[in-house]
């Protein structure tokens, strides 16, 4: 039947395109959880990641794998610099969360302008073509991009959650996320943990941007506009809940695409925002996973956005 094909096709393609959104959302959610920063500079990292890959493939004519490695390196280097030169200095000066947020915004815009100066404003892609061969499975068109992208994303997420669950650094992140100063009393070096969170997020951003840049055109300011989705997902997923952010990213992508079946297409954009609204009314604590008690990584917390609120009182 035509209708089921349409639904399945939409589901499949949305699932495939949600891969990079998931990666961006997880990166954003992780940094927010551990360092409590709304890290808009992620957009700068995205821009750097993309143009590195672009140079490697189109100017230097490197093979894809080498370009990917170079891009990852640059992404991590950018994240490292951001943390060590930017955030750490600001943290030491005791600035407000809002201030860091504006700082990250400015960094992103700055990098976007630099990219504009160097690369111009014509949209670019990593590989010269964005047309991927299609296989028809059942009645569903599966593009050659879909499966590798999904596999890479699932692999990265699995590695990440295993890391959070089984490694020391992963668990320290949870502690530092809760109270960085207290964490120091147990020998945890919070500087290192903040850095680790930034680097992991950087790796996700790199992978995500590689996927994005092989499928869609990128402009110097694309990074900034991609952030909005990541933020929406993070917030709907429940601030501090990384898995929730990932799931929210997938669901948001599917809903936005599938909505065309029910509403006129010009109101499609509106839907995302309606969703943000409904999320507040019906899921005031975000989309929560069935809570597996006592596991790491599932605890949710409220992040005070203005200033550090006093720690939660018993039962309060």
């Amino acid at each position, binding site marked *: 039947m035509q209708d089921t094909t349409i639904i399945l096709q939409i589901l499949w393609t949305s699932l495939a395109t949600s891969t990079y959104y998931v990666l961006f959302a997880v990166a954003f959610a992780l940094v927010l959880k551990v360092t409590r920063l709304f890290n808009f500079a992620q957009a700068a990292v995205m821009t750097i990641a993309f143009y590195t890959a672009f140079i490697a493939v189109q100017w230097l004519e490197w093979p894809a794998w080498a370009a990917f490695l170079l891009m990852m390196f640059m992404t991590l280097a950018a994240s490292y610099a951001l943390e060590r030169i930017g955030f750490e200095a600001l943290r030491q000066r005791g600035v407000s969360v809002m201030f860091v947020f504006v700082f990250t915004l400015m960094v992103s815009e700055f990098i976007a302008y630099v990219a504009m100066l160097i690369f111009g404003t014509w949209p670019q892609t990593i590989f010269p073509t964005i047309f991927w061969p299609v296989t028809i499975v059942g009645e569903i068109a599966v593009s050659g991009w879909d499966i590798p992208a999904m596999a890479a994303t699932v692999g990265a997420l699995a590695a990440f959650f295993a890391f959070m669950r089984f490694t020391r650094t992963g668990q*320290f992140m949870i502690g530092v996320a809760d109270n960085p100063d207290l964490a120091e*009393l*147990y*020998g*945890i070096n919070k500087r290192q943990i903040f850095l680790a969170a930034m680097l992991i997020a950087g790796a996700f951003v790199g992978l995500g941007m590689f996927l994005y840049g092989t499928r869609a055109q990128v402009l110097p300011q694309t990074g900034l506009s991609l952030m909005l989705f990541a933020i929406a997902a993070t917030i709907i997923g429940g601030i501090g809940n990384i898995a929730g952010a990932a799931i929210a990213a997938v669901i948001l992508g599917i809903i936005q695409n599938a909505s065309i079946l029910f509403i006129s297409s010009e109101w499609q954009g509106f839907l995302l925002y309606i969703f943000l609204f409904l999320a507040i009314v019906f899921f005031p604590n975000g989309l929560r996973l069935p809570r597996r008690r006592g596991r790491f990584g599932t605890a949710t917390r409220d992040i005070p956005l203005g200033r550090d609120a006093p*720690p939660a009182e018993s039962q309060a």
Partner: protein
Amino acid sequence: MLQVQNLTAGYGSLTVLNGVSLSLGNGARLGVFGHNGAGKTTLLRCIVGAVRPRDGKVDLDGTDTGVATVAENVRRGIAFVPQGHNVFPNLTIEQNLRIAGLLFDPSFVTQVYELFPVLAERCRQRAGSMSGGEQQMLALGMALMTKPKWLLLDEPSTGLAPVIVRNVMRRLADINERTGVGLIVVEQNVPATLKMVEQAVILRSGQIAFQGSAEELGRNTDLWKWF
């Protein structure tokens, strides 16, 4: 050896500690008393490295803890239980203890549970939702997880039921005897503390007003009856 040499420290323009010197051999048990604002907490924070001394130094087996970071000092064997807000409120009891012990000996958890059975019962409860006294026990347990050489306790009896206070004091003395952990206890509850410490110090306005053995202070009740 933990030596505090001529320590001066403060906040902004305020000087809180003024030339405090102490010398403690390994495994010593010291009680620190004084009125509110005498600088007791500040002294402990200097030792653990959370407050930078203006002058003087804190020497732990030959290294100056005053210039190292808190994390480094903790790894060298100083554990500190602060006063209030001393657990990760959004993590469970179990998570709290495991994270505290990850760099040291995670299997020590069972011993902490033995010391405070209520924690074992509630090991999956969010620490922030525990009662005040329960949080205090958890904080003590977490400090023990770091297997310290020196344990600095800032008013550990705050909010604990008398029977638990007695129990805790006894167990601390016990641990001290068995493992040789040095204890520095800041307390308002002088009688209970004097039972377990050997040495005592009274701080008054950032200076040492009395230094001697616990017994001596115990005899000299008019020295401490206001604390």
